[in-house]
């Protein structure tokens, strides 16, 4: 059967459908085809019928009842039926075996489970990361049908998902997935290809080193950076890494230095050190900071010493001094976290000659020295820190932290409070007051933290959790063990409310009355001290009924605008309210809005429920 002719007719009918069947009358292209159909129709009746259909459309015998649309529809229907029996099923050209990279995955997920993950990985919108991460935890990515999507996820617009795919999902397939990744790997590509290479490098082992090397040599900039970092673990590429430190592109040189820092052999260290003399000093310094070579540290300490000398010499020459400062700063970066005796000596000297160095080298140097000394754990270093503290208040915190670690509780108290108690009292002295304020905040850092904690969302959607801010104070035992008991009296004396909350003791009546008073003064629900005060009252051993009554008063006054929601400590206290508060609670709920109202409503509901239960048990 002449399929071509049928296809041709199909195209012509399509044309007439677009143009409108009113124009079909006498259509010359159909007219030209008509004889062929009639001719074929002598042998195959179906062509005859089609021929008749064409004739009825373009040359109607009964012009009066002619309906062009009807004729066209009839012909189209007939042709559609015929064409559908003529479908070609055979392939074109030669056949060869299928190219494949078999993996040992199966298909075990049901539609509903699979579709949820597919949707998360193929659409945009919120909550996708959670779905993907959960699916990975459940081992759902062992389903063959998710493999392709996992690879595609490397290019997800939400970078957390892309990173998750790179760090977790794809490596979990192991070496099996490598050939497949290599197949689609394009060294000239961007971020996605760079992530792909990362997986290839991690999972591929020795076999893919050559590929990585090729990518490092000739890939796009992003791919090269990843490739070079991947080569760090392979000593055989040391000479190549050295070459790349002289590349034209900064990011390549940076990656090469980083890789050399990891490699940490003689030539590598020499090259990094060498770079300190050139324009790459910044990236070399960052690499050096990650290099554990003692040799390098020694060289850098030596350089630092020399640079400090230069700085003293160049006092007059601004240009030279600036260059020297710049170098010093990079060397300091490189020495971050490194320790050596020479460096210690050097920093000790800096602390002794504070005024000299602060003018020539600036704060960066002294900060570095203070940081180093703080972690030295020797009395000599501590003395040096006290000296620094005398020069500049910013070193108070370094010195205090070091003292806290090294001195006994009583010695610490003696040093910071007792010996200078009268000095702290000088309220008129602005400098002292500033210092006191800073000192208190240093103390608070030591003993109070404000973390966010998950609370069950009982008032909204039970079963889900929500983050609320809360207050974490140093545990009572630790306070007793690490701090002198005399701190409390002094803290009350200077009215440091937050700290009193931490240090309060049940046997200390003064702290009880101090905190109760403070709570009574509390007018604003959003006052930062409200949460910690509740904890402080508890720690001070103030009776729970008093504490809750005080809280209730604050709630009833309700000042502080529209509170959105109650945070952790207040909420926990609300949960403890006894049934007797139910009516008072009911009266004030209306004043609140948003989550705060829901929370109060929940508390009230719980009371109602408990009341019910009590009645039931009674009647039983």
């Amino acid at each position, binding site marked *: 059967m002449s399929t071509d002719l049928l296809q041709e007719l199909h195209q012509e009918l399509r044309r007439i459908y677009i143009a409108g069947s009113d124009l079909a009358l006498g259509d010359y292209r159909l007219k030209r085809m008509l004889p062929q159909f009639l001719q074929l129709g002598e042998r195959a009746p179906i062509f005859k019928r089609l021929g008749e259909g064409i004739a009825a459309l373009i040359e109607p015998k009964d012009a009066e009842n002619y309906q062009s649309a009807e004729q066209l529809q009839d012909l189209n229907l007939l042709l559609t039926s015929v064409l559908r029996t003529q479908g070609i099923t055979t392939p074109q050209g030669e056949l060869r075996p299928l190219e494949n990279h078999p993996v040992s995955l199966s298909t075990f997920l049901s*539609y509903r489970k699979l579709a949820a993950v597919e949707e998360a990985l193929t659409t945009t919108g919120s909550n996708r990361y959670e779905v993907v991460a959960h699916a990975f935890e459940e081992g759902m990515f062992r389903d063959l049908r998710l493999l392709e999507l996992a690879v595609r996820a490397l290019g997800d617009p939400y970078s957390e998902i892309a990173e998750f795919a790179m760090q977790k999902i794809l490596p979990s397939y192991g070496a099996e997935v490598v050939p497949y990744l290599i197949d689609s790997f394009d060294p000239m590509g961007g971020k996605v290809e760079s992530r792909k290479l990362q997986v290839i490098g991690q999972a591929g082992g020795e076999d893919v080193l050559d590929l990585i090397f090729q990518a490092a040599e000739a890939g796009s900039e992003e791919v090269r950076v990843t490739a070079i970092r991947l080569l760090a673990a392979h000593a055989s590429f040391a000479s190549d890494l050295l070459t790349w430190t002289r590349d034209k592109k900064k990011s390549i040189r940076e990656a090469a230095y980083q890789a050399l820092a990891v490699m940490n052999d003689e030539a590598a260290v020499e090259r990094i050190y060498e770079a300190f003399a050139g324009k790459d000093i910044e990236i070399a310094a960052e690499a050096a900071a990650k290099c554990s070579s003692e040799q390098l540290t020694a060289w850098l300490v030596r350089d630092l010493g020399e640079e400090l000398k230069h700085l003293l010499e160049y006092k007059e020459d601004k240009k030279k001094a600036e260059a020297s400062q710049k170098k010093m700063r990079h060397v300091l970066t490189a020495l971050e976290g490194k320790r050596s005796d020479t460096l210690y000596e050097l920093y000790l000297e800096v602390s002794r000659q504070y005024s000299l160095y602060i003018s020539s080298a600036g704060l960066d140097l002294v900060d570095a020295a203070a940081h180093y000394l703080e972690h030295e754990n020797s009395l000599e270093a501590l003395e040096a820190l006290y000296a620094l503290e005398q020069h500049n208040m910013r070193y108070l915190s370094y010195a205090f932290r070091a003292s806290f670690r090294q001195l006994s509780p009583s010695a610490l108290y003696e040093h910071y409070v007792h010996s200078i108690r009268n000095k702290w009292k000088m309220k008129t002295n602005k400098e002292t007051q500033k210092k006191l304020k800073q000192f208190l905040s240093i103390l608070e850092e030591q003993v109070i933290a404000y973390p966010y904690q998950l609370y069950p969302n009982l008032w909204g959607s039970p079963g889900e959790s929500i983050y609320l801010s809360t207050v974490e104070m140093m545990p009572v035992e630790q306070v007793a063990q690490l701090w002198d008991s005399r701190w409390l009296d002094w803290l009350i004396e200077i009215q440091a409310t937050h700290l009193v909350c931490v240090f309060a003791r049940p046997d200390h009546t003064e702290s009880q009355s101090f905190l109760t008073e403070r709570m009574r003064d509390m007018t604003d629900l959003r006052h930062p001290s409200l949460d910690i005060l509740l904890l402080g009252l508890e720690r001070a051993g103030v009776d729970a009924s008093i504490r809750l009554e005080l809280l209730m008063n604050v709630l009833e006054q309700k000042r502080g605008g529209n509170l959105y929601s109650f945070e952790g400590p207040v909420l926990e206290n609300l949960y403890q309210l006894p049934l007797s508060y139910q009516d008072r609670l009911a009266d004030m709920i209306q004043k609140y809005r948003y989550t705060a109202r829901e929370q109060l409503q929940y508390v009230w509901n719980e009371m109602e429920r408990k009341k019910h239960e009590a009645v039931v048990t009674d009647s039983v």
Partner: protein
Amino acid sequence: MIEITASYVDSLASNAAAIKNAQGLVKKRSFVQLHQSEDGTLLFAECKGSGSSNYQCSADFIQPDKPILRCSCPSRQLPCKHALGLLYAYTGGEAFTTAAVPEDIVAKREKAEKREEKKSQQTSQGAEPKPKKVNKTALKKKVQSQLEGLDVLEKLLRSLVRNGLGTMDKKVIKTMQEHVKQMGNYYLTGAQTELRRLTLLLSDADDREQIYTDVGEQLAVMHAFIKKGRAHLTSKLEDPALALDHESTIEEWLGHAWQLTDLKEYGLMKEQVELVQLAFVSYDDSARQEYVDEGYWLERDSGEIHRTIQYRPYKAAKLMREEDSFFDAVRIPSLYQYPGDMNRRVRWEEMAVRPLESHETLDISKYAERSYTDVIKKVKTQLKNPLSHANPLVLLHVAEVKQSNQDEVVIADESGQHLVLRDHESNGHRTLPLFKHLSASQLEDISMLVRFEHDMDTGQLTAMPLTILKDTEMLRLLY
């Protein structure tokens, strides 16, 4: 003792969110008390919810294959997350204490028993339920109205065809949308769907050229069913019994919803049939304004491949159970078949589930068609009729899988007859990319469930692979 698995509980849930929420309840320990009855046929518990009092939920396994899940929560979703959570707690190995069956459950059980008794009495006494009384005058009126509707539709199509698709503008689309609404008034929901499909095709295309072929095909289909529909309705009017056509699909095209009793009456019911699902797919049919869950099942005794279709209207989708892939074998006391040719739609009311043994999977392969020539002939015969299902499914035996110069994937039967595989973009899914991850043995001497499609533009009849059966393994490429 109740023997259920977590995957069985999954299958009871209406959707994935219900599963997640139910498991969340167990994780968060929201169940206050977990009890089971002494005879082990009932699980019940109290569950904390957002209300002031706990919800009472229970799972009654007095008929083990038809558990009844009850709950006092106000959710409209059935079963609710609390009842599901109760079952997850059970499968998860939580401790259930033995307790007496609550009174309300006892009462409910008694009522159910009475209902059953009444039913069995009726069947044993009266044998057949009374035939439904049909109001013939009303039916006649309905048929006449349907005929009128077909005339209206035909008139609309004629004017579209006369003026040409190229002149289509917003005004015309609006007229079409109005007609879509009208079709409902003429009791022609099938016609309504098809006209909406045509309207959607014409209205949302950026690239008109591309869709003209589809439009041409759709016009052919609509023309066919107007003609066939009119002939059928006219003869129905003349028939004093006004009987339904139970041999062709025309009733469905017109929008008739078959009742199981009707199907039984026309002898379209089989007894004691065992089915195994080979593939599943769910899609959004915007012309129907429904989500469609389709399952493809093989009948164990005959090798016939049936389709189950569940429509979930957009408006009710949230409350309806979303079907899922099914991995167990099901035994069905009465299987109702719709009129049609290949892969007829089936429905059932009751079923018993049992795990599918691996040797049974192996056994299925014996039904794989070995001659592509025969299959293609059969498929083409079906496609010839524009009102037949345009995507027949066949289980084929595949001797080997190859690749052509044009990178087409090609399968061959034992006699070397070839068939080109292709992903059918129309349903938005792709399965061929998976082939490159399969091992050589998974592509040799296998059975493959394929879905056929004829492409009018290229004139090719291709098959999309849905599932591969190799020995005892069933590899679902789709769902």
